[in-house]
């Protein structure tokens, strides 16, 4: 079954790391700049996340996301540069749109933090198959039912996209204009919502029934369809991450 994920199949070390270790990395990479507010810490985290993306050879796939983030950050630069309350040192521009050093610094800090968070998330999302992640979580004691819900979420999106396409075809066939200007598209979109959501719910219910019949609620010992995968360097990664987290907390308290 097609699932919605941004997973990019590649043969890299990062891809072979345990999904849970990757989650832990993402959490650490986001937590450290919060614990240590210095720009250097954020910058370092960002650099590490970006180089890991490069090591996983998924830079090209992350570019669209970064492009979008960059667009948002441009507005941040403008607004902070012009209107940051702490602005004192004018640099360039004409009244009232003068860029100030303080505002630009602030924007720069925000930019680095946002890039860091996005890169850490992309590292997880682009190199991990959702099913692998869910399986690993269930093996660690997550209820299989919750695992099923998580899996469904990854499946429901492509399904909704498919349903949308078929219903759009049905509507176009019967004379509803769905191509053309933005307004036409918006008008065509509204009558879509109900049937698309309806049909997704029906599908989810049918799948749940099918699973029930096949023993989703079974209480005894379960076996696994796939052999347990062993992931490399798990202990080292966890130890290292823990060390970094502790070190930054200690630094914060002492410094």
């Amino acid at each position, binding site marked *: 079954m097609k699932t919605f994920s941004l997973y990019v199949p590649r043969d890299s070390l990062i891809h072979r790391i345990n999904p849970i270790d990757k989650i832990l990395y993402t959490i650490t990479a986001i937590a450290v700049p919060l614990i240590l507010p210095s720009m250097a810490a954020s910058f370092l985290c960002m650099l590490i996340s970006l180089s890991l993306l490069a090591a996983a050879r998924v830079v090209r796939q992350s570019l669209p996301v970064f492009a979008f983030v960059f667009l948002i950050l441009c507005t941040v630069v403008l607004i902070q540069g012009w209107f940051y309350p702490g602005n004192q040192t004018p640099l360039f521009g004409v009244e009232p749109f003068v860029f100030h050093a303080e505002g630009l610094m602030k924007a720069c800090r925000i930019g680095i933090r946002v890039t860091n968070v996005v890169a850490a998330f992309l590292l997880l999302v682009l190199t991990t198959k959702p099913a692998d992640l869910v399986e690993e979580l269930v093996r660690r004691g997550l209820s299989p039912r919750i695992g099923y819900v998580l899996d469904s979420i990854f499946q429901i999106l492509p399904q909704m996209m498919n349903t949308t396409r*078929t219903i759009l075809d049905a509507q176009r066939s019967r*004379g509803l204009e769905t191509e053309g200007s933005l307004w036409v598209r918006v008008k065509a979109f509204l009558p879509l919502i109900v*049937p698309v959501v309806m049909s997704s719910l029906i599908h989810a219910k049918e799948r749940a029934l099918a699973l029930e019949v096949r023993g989703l609620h079974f209480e005894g010992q379960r076996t696994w369809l796939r052999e347990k995968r062993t992931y490399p360097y798990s202990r080292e990664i966890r130890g290292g991450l823990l060390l970094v987290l502790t070190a930054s907390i200690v630094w914060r308290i002492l410094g």
Partner: protein
Amino acid sequence: MSRVVVKDVCFSYRSGEEVLKGITLDFDEKSTAIIGQNGAGKTTFVKLLKGLLKPTRGEIYILGRSANEMTAAALAPFIGLVFQNPNDQIFRSTVLEEVMFGPLNIGEDPKGARKKAEEALEMVGLTEKASENPHDLRLSEKKLVCVASIVAMEPEILILDEPTIAQDHAGMAAIRQVIRRFKEQGKLVMGILHDMDFAAENFERVVVFHQGTVVADDDPREVFSRESLLQRAGLEVPHITRLGWSLGRKETFLTEAELIQSLRGEGSTDR
């Protein structure tokens, strides 16, 4: 006069995998059955006619208009397509609303749309179900709702994708009735069919698709007498035809009536 002209049309969903490989066909008002194995490209072909897909090469003209340059919605008043899977088509909460949707879209006022919808529902025998939710109906009834929702738009050209699937006796009769009505009005009916008996009985021309090409295009008697060709295309001959052959006849029978008449006639000469 040509209603539909298809000139050297190619189509692929993914580059490199051609689903249709240069189709050239011309349709007048003769009702036409399109037959072929699963995956032969039949549904893709009619979606191209309908403007839902655009050819990667070649040209399509619907009643003299270039389908390549028109949106599916703009083509809707002229050509109607009943989808293979009714669930792909139904999206309103009552049968009547579902059937009125098309006429309303092509500029009918609410009163006129309602009248046409009611007529169409009567034609397929679903008048009683008008206020029910289409999703609660049986599959065969859903399919008939879809037929009605296109019939209500009164298109010049009607295409039915697998109309006979999951139909009971009454449903088959309703579909025959719709086809007959369109033929009487001089309109073009096309049907994609897996049911060879139904194709032989109700259509005046048969087009055989095989792996994205047309391998035969003739009147039913001609096509259904070419057993080896049908076999190569993964198809069967109609049961009646086979029965006739098994009885030692040389000619190709298309309907029970024909076979019975021939048997009777022979019986009388024997006596």
